[in-house]
């Protein structure tokens, strides 16, 4: 049953990285989505992750399980980034202001690409960890033969 903990940990990591990836992809997709003059539109998002900090005064076997469960990463929230929209010159656009500028979300494309790559590498790491857990458990099944 202990291998279940390993799979759960790696699975939680994969879920977090996938969310991070999705948010970055969403930001990139909306990089040029025009924001209306009334301010209705997309704002770039970012992911906040965290764990529950665990302090154990003594050690026992059950403490290990609880400690690991509390350290599993989880998404604590998806919030808007603190960036102001950029201005693009599009004089004929219906949403343009009197100077001919439209507002688009202030998506930092380089940062979002970096987030994508980071999420991808971390996801691969979690996959490797899960495969290692699987192979170890399978080898344990071979005892005696």
């Amino acid at each position, binding site marked *: 049953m*202990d*291998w279940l*903990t*390993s799979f759960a*940990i*790696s699975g*939680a*990591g*994969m879920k*977090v*990285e996938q969310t*991070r990836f999705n948010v970055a992809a969403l930001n990139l997709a909306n990089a040029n989505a025009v924001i209306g003059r009334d301010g209705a539109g997309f704002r770039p998002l970012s992911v906040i*992750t*965290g*764990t529950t900090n665990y302090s154990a005064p003594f*050690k*026992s*076997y059950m*403490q*290990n399980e609880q*400690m*690991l469960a509390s*350290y*599993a*990463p989880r998404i604590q929230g998806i919030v808007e980034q603190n960036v102001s929209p950029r201005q693009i010159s599009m004089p004929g656009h219906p949403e343009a202001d009197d100077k001919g500028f439209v507002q688009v979300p202030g998506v930092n494309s380089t940062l979002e690409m970096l987030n994508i790559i*980071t*999420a991808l*590498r*971390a996801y691969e*790491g*979690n996959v*490797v*960890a*899960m495969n*290692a*857990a699987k*192979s*170890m458990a399978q*080898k*344990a099944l*071979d*005892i*005696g033969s």
Partner: protein
Amino acid sequence: MPTEGMAIARLALDAAMLRHQAIASNIANVNNPGYVPLRVNFEEQLASVAENQRSGDKLQGITPFIEQESKSNGLTPQVALDMEIVKLNMNTLHYQALLRAISRYTSIEGIAITEGRR
């Protein structure tokens, strides 16, 4: 058949399984700021028991457990994905080696049981 090797090897198997979970947790939290990497405390407990006393009740008190990595040079430790993968490979191989060695070692006694007739 001497049994101290078997007892220590079984503890080492427990430690290796726990170590895998600590490494998996570190990898899962690689992009999580403020997360302190985990490790397993086992070899230190073995080292504290003198080598010629590693048997019987002295081994009873040894339990592998998970703890946070301590600060080195005053810096909080961070998760490095490449080092975690290296540790993962080492630990996996160590676990498989222990399994195989224990399996072969116990089968020696099996010879006495099955082939020693009369």
